[in-house]
């Protein structure tokens, strides 16, 4: 048994992998988020899919102004209001970067806040899906909500 050969196998395999990634034509950016495909549009999901993701531990972000959040929000959701994005983002950044599945919602019926928040997150390399029709879709489906400042 020659241990240097084991090291050589690993090194050669790693080299091949990096070379293939660089020149094989379907490589990924090593520092990028594999959830974000270049040119891929924002993903919109419906309430049922959102509920499924919530049950699996997805992180929900409430893009509406904080006052609306306090009146009622998806249980577990954190406030990331579009009108106060930078401050809220700084506070949430570590958590967001450690979360794979993020869903953003806003007031629904053509509200823009969730799209703006999702776009800003994308610019920072964080992928978030958007709950289509937002808050009303959630309440219309009869899913649980929560009042107050606590998530």
């Amino acid at each position, binding site marked *: *048994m*020659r*241990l240097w*050969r*084991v090291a050589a*196998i*690993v090194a*050669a*395999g*790693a080299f*091949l*992998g*990096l070379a*293939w*990634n660089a020149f094989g034509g*379907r*490589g*990924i*950016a*090593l*520092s*990028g*988020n*594999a*959830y974000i*495909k270049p040119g891929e549009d924002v993903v919109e999901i419906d309430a049922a899919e959102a509920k499924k993701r919530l049950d*699996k*531990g997805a992180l929900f972000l409430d893009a509406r102004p904080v006052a609306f959040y306090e009146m009622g929000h998806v249980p577990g959701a954190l406030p990331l209001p579009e009108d106060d994005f930078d401050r809220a983002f700084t506070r949430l*950044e*570590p958590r967001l*970067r*450690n979360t*794979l599945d993020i869903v953003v919602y806003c007031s629904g019926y053509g509200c823009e806040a969730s799209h703006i928040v999702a776009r800003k997150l994308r610019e920072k*390399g964080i992928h978030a899906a958007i709950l289509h029709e937002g808050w009303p879709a959630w309440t219309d489906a009869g899913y649980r909500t929560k009042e107050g400042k606590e998530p």
Partner: protein
Amino acid sequence: MRALRHPAVHWLLGIALGAVFIYASIDKIEQPREFARIVYHYRLIGPTAALGFVLANTLAVTLPWIEALTGLLLIVGVWRREAALTAALLLVMFLVAVGWALAHGIDVENCGCFSVSGEGRAAGAKLILQDLGLLAVALVLAFVPPRAREVARVNERVRYAAPGATSK
């Protein structure tokens, strides 16, 4: 135990283990983005705020090729013992990853073992048994020398020890 040292058994085990490793690498080589997402799911090496995605992505693009190369060497029988040890180390790594996921209650829907598509197998007890089985094969190939090799080694020793032979 005697049967395990038969050269033909080694030859067969090498081909079988090699085939498993090559088969496991194909889907991941074809779809690095999907495999990277599976690596994220384990939450073992990121992505984290400190490390970003680099570590997980680098593993995702290099691991399948290390598997493929290991499998190829096992099949053709070049550096077979070292390739088997590499396979054993990889399997230990997989076991650690699956154990980690189970211990932390992370629901790894698709273990990323053979396929990166959604219909893959979940990481669970069955997977651990499968990895342990493969690990046993790899360890036999790495540490139980086939008889022919043993004979050659004894001959070598005898030659060195023979009176009149020049010592090294």
